[in-house]
């Protein structure tokens, strides 16, 4: 009997621990959700129990966000930035990753690590000179400056990811194509790229989420409201003087978080194997 009891106790403490972790991770998001649907009189009344609705839920904050702020514009800005950065990243990282994967000897690996290490160069080290560079090419206070600057961290990361993908492709397939009269370049376009499609999809998703997560460069380069990407706009532009529009801020944060959260969960394993570079085999 004591054995059964000890078992039950262990089971219970296990699930309690899981529940605590779940709560720790999820509560801030629950807080976003409930705040964005609460009326202001409910939000700003310390006598109310804050964990659920004391007044009936309202869409007032969402309506305000979409009609009276630049929220839609920020969404569009982020979309445009994401698409452009994806294009630049693919055009440069695809051939680079392929070339590194097919290099003989140690050179490819060494060069690959060198490129990957630039991913670790922090924005806070480069923002001062880059803001000058951005001003020099006439992109000051414009979202296009981010299109130019974001590839500095997406290219290293994606080159590294794609190098791994291309290495996994058997070189014999390309050789067969070459024997059949394809040029080396043709073998890359017609054989290697179609086979690496899953890798390319991963790279597109990650480039997109990395551009959405970035904050430091956006904060440094852009002060015009209508040029801000979504993260910067929601975090800094829904404050008037000293007054925070908490309902609107939380609604905006929620909307911007959802796509990134989904994408991350789908591609998490690839991301981790990219970062660890196969430190475990």
């Amino acid at each position: 009997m004591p054995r059964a009891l000890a078992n039950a106790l262990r089971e219970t403490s296990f699930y309690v621990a899981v529940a605590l972790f779940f709560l720790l991770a999820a509560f801030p998001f629950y807080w976003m959700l409930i705040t964005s649907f609460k009326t202001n009189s409910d939000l700003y009344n310390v006598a109310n129990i804050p964990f659920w609705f004391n007044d009936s839920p309202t869409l007032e904050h969402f309506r305000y966000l979409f009609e009276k702020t630049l929220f839609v514009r920020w969404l569009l800005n982020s979309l445009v930035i994401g698409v452009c950065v994806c294009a630049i990243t693919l055009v440069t990282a695809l051939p680079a990753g392929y070339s590194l994967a097919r290099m003989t000897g140690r050179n490819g690996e060494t060069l690959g690590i060198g490129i990957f290490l630039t991913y670790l160069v922090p924005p806070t080290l480069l923002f001062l000179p880059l803001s000058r560079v951005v001003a020099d090419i006439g992109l000051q206070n414009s979202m296009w400056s981010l299109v130019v600057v974001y590839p500095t961290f997406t290219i290293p990361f994606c080159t590294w990811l794609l190098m791994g993908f291309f290495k996994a492709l058997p070189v014999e397939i390309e050789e067969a194509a070459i024997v059949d009269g394809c040029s080396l370049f043709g073998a890359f376009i017609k054989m290697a790229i179609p086979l690496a499609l899953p890798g390319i999809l991963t790279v597109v998703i990650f480039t997109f989420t990395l551009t959405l997560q970035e904050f430091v460069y956006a904060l440094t380069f852009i002060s015009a409201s209508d040029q801000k990407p979504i993260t910067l706009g929601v975090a800094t532009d829904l404050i008037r003087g000293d007054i925070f529009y908490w309902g609107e801020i939380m609604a905006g944060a929620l909307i911007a978080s959802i796509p990134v959260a989904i994408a991350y969960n789908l591609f998490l394993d690839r991301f981790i194997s990219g970062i660890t570079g196969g430190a475990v085999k």
Partner: protein
Amino acid sequence: MTVIAAPIAKPASRFRFILDRRAVLGSVFIAPAILYVLLLVGLPFLLAVYYSVSAYTIYDPSWQFVGLANFEQIVQDPVFLQTLGNTFIFTFGSQLLGLILGKFGALLLLRPFPGRKFVRAVIILPWAVPIALATVAWQWMFDSLYSVINWTLIALGIVTRGDAPNWLGTPSLAMLSVIVVNAWRFFPFAIVIFLAGITAIPQDILDAATVDGAGFWRRNYQIIVPMILPIVAIGLIFGIVFTFTDLSIVFLMTMGGPVGATSVLGFKGFQVGILSGDVSHGAAISLFMLPVLFVVVVAMLRFIRRREI
């Protein structure tokens, strides 16, 4: 080197001779990526170094060389020394807390239970969601008047409304708050890293150890820990680099305050170099990150090399 068969006669393209040489094509393929990185990472980095030894401000964009004067001024400033100390406390405090939470979380998620996939997906959220957005949610949770944390503490009878903590307005509590938010942001990453390491250990090694009489602790500390060490080290390196150089949490939650209690290197560089326009001093402050980054990069290279052997 593979031998390429001579192509069959075909209307030859003018570029054929380029596109058929492996060495040439390899260089052409990799050139754009390297050029991009050199132009927009390498060049700005040199520019940052030059700023730090010049008298450059946005009001007086002169390139006058002043040697190490900027660094001397910075080091003699007690506020900067506090910032440097804060950065280390912020980094190691949040990494330690994140690692502990990550190890426990990984142990929990290792065991199959109904709904594990869903729980894992939710636990990943703090790492996945843009940190600036999650930070504003925390800022709202730490609000001086409407803090849900304080509301709970009051409802539980732990504090009264009169002496409820002002999380972001008291120096020590503000530091604790930014550390907690950063640890919260990194613990899912630590969990995933631990899980990736543990699940990659071949089961037969563990079985062999068990057959040889190794108990739970022995298996844990003499097999599992040494085997996951490389991957955990790489995870930690990422954590340290991104925390040590971060400014978004501090910028959004406390603006370095109260009275500089949460000012960190990245934020200070931003404050001096961008907000005040004193580019040369800002660049010099940012460059103080370099020694730490250097150590970290060397450690990373050593781990990668060891993996190859």
